[in-house]
């Protein structure tokens, strides 16, 4: 695990000095993070990096998990889909399962933090145990068009928090509490993003039998090698089903490689670095952090104009945004046929990520968020 000093060559000493200044201001406060899984998924990934770094900076950050059975996670997956606007039936029994598990967690968990930082809907109901401490709800989901029924159910809890945090402006709702915009981030020193020697990249391609005789693209196209790679999350029971459907659809095309990577970040990194163009053609997206991962590797991107993606790509400056399948394939053709243009977009993309989407910016904003809980003014002198 990288130490804070190791980020200095990437972001510069003054940025790290600023982080230390902020950490000093949080001296004596315990920040308790709570979510539902320690492995798989973006939240666990970011907490696995953030908590040790916050500690190293001097912030007393800790991390606890709620417990839940299969039924509970089936229900929270339904919540997740409903918040994404999917028309899905959530029964009274589902709500009861959610409340019952939440009550058990409330009874069993020690909520000791001066600041209790709750991630996503699974642990949201713990706030019923709130007393005099500060509570923040961190929403990593796109809730721009949520199912009204599920949103209103969750609102009963969200309104009890001191603040909420969303990843994109369109996700904000009218709430009686303060809401902040904090984008997620990537860690440039993690296995998924660090520089790799060419031998490692070649070895991964060999391992999966992917020839490098054609440009490699990470989204469907009949003319190019395609790699579809993904992993599962323990709180996402749908991932196996999706994998099966994709494999069925791709089984007759030898240029399509569908890979299930069991949390092998080096391999994901190598596949991204081996790509000529990277695509993120999402129908809906929370934030779409894979976009920043690709841009950090200076890769030209074609990505959907949804969720948090437009925050990461300024169209025609740091990548190409698309609104349709036709638009995506046209943009892909442009990038493959104009390598200089593609290179320039990739370089701008990396610079944009460096300034806005690295973990150091995320650490800074989380510490500012914690400080904001004790200051109501728009200009705060610390």
């Amino acid at each position, binding site marked *: 695990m990288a130490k804070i000093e190791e980020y200095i060559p990437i972001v510069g000493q*003054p940025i790290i000095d*600023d982080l230390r200044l902020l950490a000093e201001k949080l001296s004596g406060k315990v920040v308790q993070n709570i979510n539902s899984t320690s492995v798989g998924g973006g939240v666990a990934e970011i907490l696995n990096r953030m908590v040790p770094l916050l500690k190293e900076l001097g912030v007393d950050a800790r991390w606890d998990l709620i417990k839940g059975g299969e039924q509970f996670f089936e229900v929270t997956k339904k919540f997740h889909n409903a918040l994404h606007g999917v028309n899905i039936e959530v029964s009274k029994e589902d709500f009861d399962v959610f409340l019952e598990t939440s009550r058990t967690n409330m009874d069993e968990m020690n909520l000791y933090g001066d600041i209790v930082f709750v991630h996503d809907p699974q642990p949201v109901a713990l706030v019923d145990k709130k007393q005099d401490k500060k509570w923040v709800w961190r929403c990593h989901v796109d809730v721009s068009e949520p199912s009204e029924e599920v949103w209103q159910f969750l609102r009963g809890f969200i309104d009890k928090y001191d603040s909420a945090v969303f990843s994109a402006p369109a996700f904000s709702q009218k709430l009686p509490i303060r*809401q*902040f915009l904090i984008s997620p981030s990537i860690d440039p020193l993690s296995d998924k993003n660090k520089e790799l020697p060419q031998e490692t990249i070649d070895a991964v391609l060999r391992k999966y039998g992917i020839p490098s005789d054609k440009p490699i693209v990470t989204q469907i196209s009949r003319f190019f090698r395609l790699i579809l790679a993904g992993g599962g999350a323990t709180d996402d029971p749908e991932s196996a089903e999706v994998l099966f459907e994709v494999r069925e659809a791709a089984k007759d095309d030898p240029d399509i490689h569908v890979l299930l990577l069991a949390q092998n970040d080096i391999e994901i990194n190598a596949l991204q670095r081996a790509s000529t163009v990277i695509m993120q053609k999402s129908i809906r997206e929370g934030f779409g952090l894979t976009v920043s991962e690709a841009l950090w590797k200076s890769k030209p991107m074609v990505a959907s104009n*949804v969720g948090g993606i437009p925050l990461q790509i300024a169209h025609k400056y740091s990548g190409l945004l698309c609104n349709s399948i036709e638009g995506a394939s046209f943009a892909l053709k442009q990038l493959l046929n104009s390598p200089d243009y593609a290179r320039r977009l990739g370089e701008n993309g990396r610079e944009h990520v460096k300034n*806005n989407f690295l973990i150091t910016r995320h650490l800074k904003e989380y510490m*500012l*968020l914690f400080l904001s809980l004790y200051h109501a003014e728009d*200009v705060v002198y610390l």
Partner: protein
Amino acid sequence: MPEQQKAKEPFVFYTRMHLTELTGLRASTLSQLLQLVKEVNGSCIYHHTHRFLQQHQHLSPEPPNDFAYWVTEVLGEDELGEKLASIDVIQFNTIRSLREKIAEAIESYLAENPMAKVRFSKENEEFHFMKSISFVMPTKYVAHDLNDFVEILGKITIDSIYYHIFESRLRLEKNANDFSNWFLTSLGDDRLAAEISKLDPYTFTLEGLRNRVIRIVKIRIDS
């Protein structure tokens, strides 16, 4: 470097970090945009006229404001977009006057182009009002003369430069940037103060601005 006159008061470099607060307020027409521009907190106007500058610091020396971008790219009202983009922020010493100018531009456009009132943004492309929450704190860097000043300027964060040049002048309504104030009041150097004051910082990238200020001060040291 030649020895420099010591300042009456040292220059303490501050840094400014910011957090974006969401308001939940959104506009999908020009009329709604106008109404909200008139009503929202001044921190929202500040945010939407300075956000691009910080987030896309490497891309554009002349950042458009968010209002101009939305009116052009989403509503397709190019003429108004151009008017809003041409509002020269350096000419305004208060957020209030800047707000009035933006509102006046939209208002007069709507009066001349009534059909613009019925143009709606697409779903998910509304204008979301946000505001900047600034956290200001002193750094460990303190300059006692121009040599110190130029050395520190080369290594502080661009957040610090941003604070002393942009935020102090407009948001905190100090009329001039902090650097010019210090050159004038603590070093008695009205020429250097005027040289920095006459820069239009909105026409530089932040790194470009850092380099320009360093160059001006170095020339002054050598003169």
